[in-house]
């Protein structure tokens, strides 16, 4: 298996544990969606993945390597973690140089080819020579996705990859992520965007502040709607309307008005 969280506990301040004996592992080609309130530990899990944070107890194992005993730059060969703000990492003068940085830093064999393939996957081939800050904000976000893909890491973790993307870019991201999964890459996504990621994910990990984390198959998301709502995530409004109508459609006679807060 690619990633293994083995009874991981973590707390920023002693006494208020963020993660409590969290245990799960991922299978190559799987897409895991992580949801939860801000501060429930979502981005902490990403930082535990590549050794930026070390667990207080338990182990995080990446392809057999214990993250507590390896350097982040070294773990980056296997797990690429991309954070929410493109401005944190974009430094190059052209889109191509930015995408090429990962494979070169990890001295992959053919960095330029990896970069070009990743840019093509993210629909940025046309903008190869442009300056990253001449792109639109959503295109810069896709550039960070392309940089992660180009790094060649087998596990790609993203923090809110669909935020600031409008529909054309969402289509590109969806296509890119599905292709990556078909190539056997493991995807770990932290996001509020249920509408976009539930159809794509295999499993959903719900982090809850009071009670232990919940892990269930994505197709069952509809039945866990109240758990998801408590975790501060909702399905798009139109989907909820559709579900209400379907439910009311089935109830022929007792014509109940929709719940106050659909």
């Amino acid at each position, binding site marked *: 298996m690619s990633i293994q969280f083995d009874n991981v506990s973590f707390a920023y301040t002693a006494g208020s544990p963020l993660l409590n004996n969290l245990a799960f592992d991922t299978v190559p080609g799987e897409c895991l969606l992580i949801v939860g309130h801000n501060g429930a530990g979502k981005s902490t899990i990403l930082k535990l993945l590549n050794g930026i944070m070390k667990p207080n107890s338990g182990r995080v194992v990446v392809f057999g390597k214990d993250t507590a005993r390896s350097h982040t730059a070294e773990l980056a060969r296997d797990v690429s973690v991309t954070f929410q703000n493109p401005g944190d990492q974009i430094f190059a003068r052209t889109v191509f140089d930015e995408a090429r940085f990962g494979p070169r830093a990890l001295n992959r064999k053919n960095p330029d080819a990896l970069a070009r393939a990743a840019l093509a996957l993210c629909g940025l081939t046309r903008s190869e020579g442009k300056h990253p800050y001449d792109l639109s904000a*959503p295109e810069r976000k896709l550039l960070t996705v392309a940089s992660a893909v180009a790094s060649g890491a087998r596990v790609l973790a993203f923090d809110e990859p669909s935020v600031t993307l*409008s529909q*054309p870019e969402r289509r590109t991201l969806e296509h890119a992520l599905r292709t990556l999964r078909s190539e056997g890459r493991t995807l770990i996504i932290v996001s509020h965007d249920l509408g976009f990621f539930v159809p794509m994910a295999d499993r959903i990990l719900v982090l809850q502040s009071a009670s232990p984390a919940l892990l269930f198959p994505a197709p069952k998301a509809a039945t866990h709607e109240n758990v998801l709502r408590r975790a501060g995530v909702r399905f798009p*409004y*139109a989907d909820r*309307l*559709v579900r209400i109508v379907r439910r009311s*459609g089935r109830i022929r006679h007792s014509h109940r008005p*929709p719940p106050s807060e659909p």
Partner: protein
Amino acid sequence: MADSISIKSFTFRYPGSHRNALSEVSLEIQAGSCCAILGPTGAGKTTLLQAVAGVLGAHHAQAAANGHIQIGSVVHSPLPRSILFPRVGLFLQDPTVQISGIRDNVEDEVRFTLDNLRVGDEEAVQRVRIQLEELGLGMLATRPLSQLSGGELQRVALAGMLVASPPVLLLDEPLNSLDATAQARLLRLLATFRGRHTVVLTDYGIDAALRLADRVVVLSEGRVLYQGAPAGLVSRSEEFVDLLPADSLVRLSGLAGDERIPSPERRFFRKILGAL
């Protein structure tokens, strides 16, 4: 005291650009109503808001523009050449950028706007207190800004704009950086402005349009593709599937016409749609 907005065949091109950011845009937004402008990146949503707010005219004096923009009774041809605050309040995407960075706590931050408008001490203190109460920030008045959550920061930034009681309030992608609960709270808050402010907001998605807006405008490549009630957006959603995350809308409109659902439910359903 809210103002109507009337935009007539407005065209704008940024200096040095080879394409119109907005071409022949005509919109009528009633005073006190709420209008949602939807569309993909580059459709010209932000450009339109900045045109109405006067930022475009102030920052790009030599840009090519024609048509005209009317706010209330004042006609600007082709666009306002200076920032129209406090007649028009424009709220930028990132709430943390909206916070001035010059004041330490909540009430001073909101007071900053009134200081710029040279409002006297007593009146300013009073208006700030009322504005904080209205947005449920009363007890946070002396709280340092560094201790606020993202949602609270955005409400303080909103208070900083609303304290000048702008007849027109423009919000650029307000839902973008918020989680579901904060989005719901913001939309409920904006709904209370109906009649008092003319609210225009932009959105990549469709939730704001479905839940809040009286009118919806769909922009693509600087042109208006649709302008009308949200229900109309649902029925024509197939057209916009490439522009808006409207696939769930398509399922919704499919149900509206679905014969298999018995007529009372279908009537009930259209009522929901009508109430959007």
